[in-house]
């Protein structure tokens, strides 16, 4: 980090860190500058130029996401020239794709849609020409509609710089430019590991989570912060639910450690087991060996277990009973389980599959 310097931002003199960009300083001071290609923790590429600002004595507008502040810089974020440039950029993007929000999963959380609204645009001044790509729908996890791609490159940087899976890249030049796995492969035929990072960072509806499609509008979903149930990393994640069902799983950059908003395929796409029809729903008892299981009430089950355990303990001693706690259950449950074995049964025969 650099030292404190003074700059003037929209008429206000402020002191900022000399190592920061104009965009970062604006953000720190509560001034909104729109962005599209910029994505925290990835390289600033200055591709979209929607973040432009006026800098006194600069020859043209500058991209604030890439421009470091310098002493006594005078910056304006909201002049007519800035707005005109932003409108031009957004209208071009709008006209170059198939942005039919009626059928788009991102409707309501699309960054392009938000900027169109923010800039109060009714129509693009250019004729809408969609590239006519085929939809990629041949896997069960991620859908791609490159007709909605604005070539911001966030997915490419997320895949290479955040996850380092090195699957995505740009192909072709200028008018045919396109993002995707090498050799124009589909995700399912590429080395993609389905971490879903690209879908999480995509500002538009170009890369979306397939299982979430038609499962609920963004504003209908309920968000619950929790911890992944799979490996020992313990990623923090948001479960989005509707009508008592998990609709999708997202990382959240605000939660910080341990995963800083990233997830892997298990965390992102592995939660459908929760609603699987095979889930057990009632206690089952086999009254005699070789009998079939019979459904029972909880009270019957508790009584059956308590009677049998008490009898075994009386006849053979507490150490003839053993218990397996679980690396999958909560701390509270493991605590209670070993307390039950030790205090209620009276044995230290308690272990779990940690060794395995």
């Amino acid at each position: 980090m650099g030292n404190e310097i003074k700059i003037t931002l929209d008429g206000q003199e402020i002191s900022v860190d000399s190592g920061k960009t104009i965009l970062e300083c604006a953000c720190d001071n509560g001034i909104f500058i729109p962005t599209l290609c910029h994505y925290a923790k990835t390289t600033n590429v200055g591709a979209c130029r929607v973040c432009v600002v006026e800098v006194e004595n600069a020859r043209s507008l500058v991209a604030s996401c890439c421009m470091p502040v310098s002493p006594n810089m005078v910056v304006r974020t909201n002049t007519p020239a800035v707005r005109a440039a932003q409108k031009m950029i957004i209208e071009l993007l709008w006209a170059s794709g198939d942005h039919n929000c009626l059928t788009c999963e991102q409707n309501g959380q699309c960054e392009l849609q938000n900027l169109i609204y923010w800039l109060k645009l009714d129509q693009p001044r250019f004729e809408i020409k969609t590239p006519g790509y085929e939809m990629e729908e041949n896997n069960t996890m991620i859908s791609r509609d490159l007709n909605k791609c604005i070539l911001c490159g966030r997915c490419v940087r997320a895949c290479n710089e955040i996850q380092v899976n090195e699957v995505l890249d740009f192909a072709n030049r200028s008018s045919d430019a396109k993002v995707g796995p090498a050799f124009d492969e589909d995700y399912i035929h590429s080395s993609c590991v389905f971490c879903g990072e690209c879908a999480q960072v995509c500002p538009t509806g170009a890369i979306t989570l397939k299982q979430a499609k038609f499962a609920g509008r963004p504003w209908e979903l309920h968000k619950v912060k929790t911890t992944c149930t799979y490996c020992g990393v313990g990623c923090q994640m948001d479960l989005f639910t509707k009508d008592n069902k998990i609709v999708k799983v997202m990382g959240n950059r605000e939660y910080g450690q341990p995963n800083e908003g990233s997830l892997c395929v298990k965390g992102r796409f592995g939660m459908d087991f929760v609603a699987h029809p095979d889930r057990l729903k009632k206690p089952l008892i086999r009254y005699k060996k070789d009998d079939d299981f019979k459904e029972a009430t909880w009270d019957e089950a508790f009584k059956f277990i308590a009677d049998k355990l008490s009898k075994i303990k009386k006849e053979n001693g507490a150490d003839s009973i053993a218990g397996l706690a679980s690396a999958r259950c909560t701390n509270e449950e493991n605590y209670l389980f070993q307390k039950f074995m030790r205090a209620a049964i009276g044995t230290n025969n308690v272990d779990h599959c940690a060794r395995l």
Partner: protein
Amino acid sequence: MAGLAATFGSGAMTNSIDEIEFTDLILATGTNTTENHPVIGMKVKRAVKKGTKLIVIDPREIDLVKYADIWLRQNPGTDVAVINGLLNVIIAEGLYAKEYVKDRTEGFDALKKVVEKYTPAYVEKISGVPAEDLKKAARMYAKAVRASILYAMGITQHISGTDNVKSMANLSMLCGNVGIEGGGVNPLRGQNNVQGACDMGGLPNVYPAYQQVANEDVRKKFEAAWNAQLSPKPGLTIMEMMDAAGRGTIKAIYIMGENPMLSDPDLQHVKKELQKLDLMIVQDLFMTETAQLADVVLPVASFAEKDGTFSNTERRVQRIRKAVNAPGEAKADWEVICGISNKMGYAMNYASAKEIFEEVVKVTPSYAGISYERLEKGGIQWPCPTPEHQGTKFLHKDKFSRGLGLFSAIEYIAPNEMPDKQYPFLLSTGRVLYHYHTGTMTTRSEGLSERCPESLVEINPADAEKMKISEGQRVKVTSRRGTVEAKASITKKSAPGSIFMNFHFADTSVNLLTNPALDPIGKIPEYKVCAVKVEAA
């Protein structure tokens, strides 16, 4: 994690996940990180991109090898020899942290003596690792200012597992890497709450926070807290329980959310033993292979249907929160335990997981300062002794939990079962990216199953050619204990003479094959090495 506990006085990951990205060198051994802990794998790769050096010690050509500065491909089960070789070079060349060794450790002379014979040439003979590579790796590790060691089941699932872990600790201490940011010895835990299950006393010899059941003062404390008489006798480990069930001395087993019928070695044997029980109680999400053998099966809530906390592999205690209702009559595991306990006359009345946690922190010193209120702001890493304490990013800062760090002089012992004429291949088992543990959850996920629908036998191209086995062909794998069938996947990930299989699928139960020989201290079965033969099915 008995090895680490003996060395440092604590068995957890010494440092934090985010430090991995900001260290000078990472030594990864026995961990296929990008598949088993993908988000940590991501940080390792990011670190390498920024200039961190990476040494990989692994018999398989795992993804991380692509990013490694040095890859040592040892013969499976020869880890101790390789680490001793590194120690040998570092000591012989005087590259170790002399001050640190003098001030903070004990046992150096004994270590020095034992590793003397593990010269690079001798180690090459045992492990197949070229002497020059070993020297290079030793120098690179010793010269790094901060170096972090990552390891997982590839290190512990051996008959010498405890020794392997102690060897890691030896190496780290020798170069002054324990107790500094970016350093440490870091076991990566496979399951989401293995750390928590251990912390909470889900072990036969300790109460919560690793307080010994055999210690009278400790026991008195718990007797008072729990208002019960407690047994001073340490209990049985899981493998001992199975044996005792077979002998008839264990009559009842109560299993909460585990599936030993797919995860334990030598499954045929386990099944026979479990069938002899008078009473087997299983509570789980699904009718697992284990539940099918039970007398009572109880439906429970999944992580998304209840409140509570998990402790991750870096000791971070984090909340889970109820997002949806459990199906049918399923209850949270803790409610089930309370129900049984109350019927047996030992009162357990809690209104919520939070109430249980409030009791936990009273008897668990390392968790004492943690509360649900504090966890709202994010996870906290234990030890966290007081409500003001910020939690602990890395352990053993100025002093080890046991005082001085103890070097353990360890000799290499060969794996219990090595390939021979009849069973010429070495089988290792492990996980793959798309599945988790016994597959109860992941094989019921559409996406994960799409990417990885079945178990595969990974076999080296040279071996495949010799046996005329082609990609996707069904093969039969047989050990002294059983046979399974699966499709062949021809890949140079497997070294010549070695095959790899995962244990996620019930219809290809690889644990019908594995060797139940146990590490005498850690009591972990030797999943990583057993002898098999492979033939076209």
